[in-house]
């Protein structure tokens, strides 16, 4: 189909956007072939990112996990241990690429919004507006065992929390340019703590809920 005879389709001028998904644990990336590179070496990430940029890709998309996969009591043999945190990895790539978008997989269940927003905003600033955030909403207790808070969220609650990541505003954050994630100006620890305590169920509530509960909390502590 050439452009000339494409007029009977709904989107004759459609443009394809490519991203490259650099995965974490998986059995799809072949490791047994001699040409297979290290899954940790920065040179591997750089080669993939530069090839994608040469191919005018929109984004380099980095997978990540928060606990090593296990199999029958041992570490899953196809997992990758020792990779840098994805925002750290992408910050390094930001310095040696020019145009390609840099998308970090970061978890809403086990991160705190103000902290994560600051790191993502930092990547966005360092890269000149090329940061993206792949929001993942892990809900399983198995991953939660790696975190002090532990536990997990019901399926519906993990999206509630993720949505509250996005809608949260107020003293801990202001909306940043180029991203709809909350970007902290100067986090005020005391007030963030109040927000955590006031909300009870977790550190984050939607703006209206937070305001209501914080008002109630202030009343109670007077």
């Amino acid at each position, binding site marked *: 189909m050439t452009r000339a005879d494409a007029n009977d389709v709904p989107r004759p001028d459609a443009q394809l956007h490519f991203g490259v*998904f650099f995965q974490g644990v998986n059995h799809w990336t072949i490791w047994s072939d001699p040409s297979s590179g290290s899954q940790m070496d920065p040179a591997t990430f750089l*080669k993939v990112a530069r090839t994608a940029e040469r191919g005018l890709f929109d984004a380099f998309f980095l997978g990540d996990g928060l606990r090593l996969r296990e199999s029958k009591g041992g570490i899953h043999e196809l997992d990758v241990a020792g990779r840098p945190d994805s925002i750290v990895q992408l910050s390094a790539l930001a310095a040696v690429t020019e145009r390609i978008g840099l998308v970090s997989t970061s978890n809403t269940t086990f991160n705190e919004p103000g902290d994560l927003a600051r790191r993502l905003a930092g990547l966005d600033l360092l890269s000149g507006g090329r940061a*993206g955030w792949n929001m993942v909403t892990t809900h399983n207790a198995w991953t939660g065992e790696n975190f002090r808070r532990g536990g997990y969220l019901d399926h519906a609650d993990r999206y509630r929390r993720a949505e509250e990541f996005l809608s949260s505003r107020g003293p801990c954050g202001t909306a940043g340019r180029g991203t709809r994630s909350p970007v902290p100006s100067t986090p005020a620890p005391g007030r963030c703590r109040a927000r955590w305590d006031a909300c009870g169920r977790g550190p984050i509530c939607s703006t209206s809920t937070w305001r209501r509960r914080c008002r109630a909390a202030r009343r109670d502590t007077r």
Partner: protein
Amino acid sequence: MIFQAGDSGEGRDFAARNADVIFSAHGTDFDDALAFAEDIRRRLRAAGRPEDALRILPGTEIIIGATEKEAEEKARWVRLQQVTPAVALGIASLLWGFDLSGRDADGPLPAEDPVVAAYDGKFGTRQLGETLDTVAEWRAKAEANGWSLRETVIELGPQRGHVGTPAGLAEKFARFARHGAVDGFNISPYLVPDGLDDIVELLVPELQERGVYRTAYTGTTLREHLGLAPVA
């Protein structure tokens, strides 16, 4: 820029309300991709967002050969490397619901019926009926074709991706894009770091020739690359 990959109804609604890019598993079969895209556009309208506010980029693998035959041979090699005997037994264990790691992947399918354990917080849930249907289909096809367990997993297990010549794939992808079935692909290279080379050197020029792929970056930010409206 928010990327999101949920596939449940809740995950799709979440993406329709909040995401700039949805990363789906619906990019191999044209009808499936189009149905997914139409469902997402319905949810976008319901969420009060314009249909072009979200880019749909299914994850995929792309295997390229100079001829169709060469591409198929390469795909076969890739599948054999990916689905080792241990991987085949792992995938089958998930389906059957109990540990099959001591079995012979090059032998027949397990004779036992699958069991579906209570959700243990580690893996996704499956319905027993759905599992029984899948196992019945695997048994029928393995018997008809004389496949071992490993061959059955290769043929019928988790599948993804496109296989073909640069020109053939470019035609196919142009159709996907022009019918609104996808806005692009999030490509998983089967080898790192060299697995993108064929795509960049052979496929991208064919797409450019068909006018469905940029010939230079026109913006500097990820939002501009994706062609999304600026933040107000």
